[in-house]
C-alpha cells in the first residue's frame, strides 16, 4: 500500500470496496447462499479467468426446442417443454411436471465472445460455455526500463 502524501478523495476507497465485493461474489468457491430463481429454469453460474459456465436442468426438453442467444453481457435461454397428449379415457392420477414455454435472461459478470459460445445438452442438463471477451481479459503490463 502506498502511503498518501495528500488527502485524496474517497473514490479510491470506494472502488476498493466495490472490488472486494465483486471478488467475494465471483471468486469464492462456495457461494454464500443459494438464490431463488425468479423464473424457470434455475441456473448455476461458474466463472474462471477464462470465462463463464452456465448450467440449467431442463429434463424432458428436446434439444431442438432450446434457443440460446447472447447479446453483449446478456444470456437468454428460450424454449418449451411438450406434454404428453392423453387419449380419451386416459386419466391422470398425479400431475406435477409442468410444461409450456419458458424464457429467461441473465446478466453475465463480463462481456463474452458471442461467436465462441458453446452449448451441450445431455441427460436433461444444459451446459453453456462462454469464453470471456479477449479485450476484457485482465492484462499484465510489462514495465520497461530505458
Amino acid at each position, binding site marked *: 500500500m502506498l502511503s498518501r502524501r495528500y488527502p485524496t478523495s474517497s473514490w479510491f476507497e470506494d472502488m476498493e470496496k466495490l472490488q472486494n465485493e465483486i471478488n467475494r461474489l465471483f471468486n469464492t468457491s462456495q457461494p454464500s447462499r443459494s*438464490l431463488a430463481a425468479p423464473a424457470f429454469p434455475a441456473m448455476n453460474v461458474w466463472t474462471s479467468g477464462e470465462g463463464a459456465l452456465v448450467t440449467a436442468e431442463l429434463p424432458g426438453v428436446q434439444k431442438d426446442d432450446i434457443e440460446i442467444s447472447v447479446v453483449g453481457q446478456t444470456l437468454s435461454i428460450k424454449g418449451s417443454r411438450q406434454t404428453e397428449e392423453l387419449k380419451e379415457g386416459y386419466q391422470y392420477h*398425479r400431475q406435477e411436471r409442468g410444461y409450456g414455454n419458458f424464457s429467461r435472461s441473465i446478466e453475465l459478470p463480463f462481456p463474452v465472445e458471442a461467436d465462441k459460445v458453446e452449448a451441450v445438452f445431455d441427460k436433461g442438463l444444459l451446459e453453456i460455455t462462454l469464453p470471456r471477451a479477449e479485450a476484457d481479459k485482465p492484462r499484465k503490463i510489462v514495465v520497461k526500463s530505458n
Partner: protein
Amino acid sequence: MTTESKNLEVKKEELAPAEGTERTRETRVYIPRTDIYETENEVVLTADVPGADEKSIDITLEKDRLTISAYVEPRRPENYSLAYAEYGVGDFQRSFNISKEIDREKIQAVVKDGVLRLTLPKREAAKTQKIAVKPA
C-alpha cells in the same frame, strides 16, 4: 386431452430423511416431480431426474413398494468456481405404492433426456382368479 397448462416449477423439493436416520451418501436428495396416468392396459409413470441415466438409476420393488433412486454425481468443472447458484444438485428418490392389479413381472423402465418413464402393465383380465364355491 388436457387443455389447462401447468406452470414449470423452479424449485426442487428436498427429501427429508426418515426420523432418526441418516444418509450414507453425503449428498442432497430431491423428490423428483412425477406424472402418473392410467390407460386401459397400463399405468404410466414419468419422473424428472435430470443428470441421471440408465447406469445411475435403481428401481426396486419390494412387496407393494416401488422405489426409484437416481444417483447424480455433482459436477465440479475444473478451474471454475461457483459464482452463484439457483439450484442444488443431488440424488433423486421417491417411493410409490403399487396396486395389486399391476403385473410385476412386466414393468418396464426407459430413461431419456433426464426423464424416467415407467410402464406398469395391468394384469390380464384372464388372469383374474375365480374361486368356485363348492357346496359342502
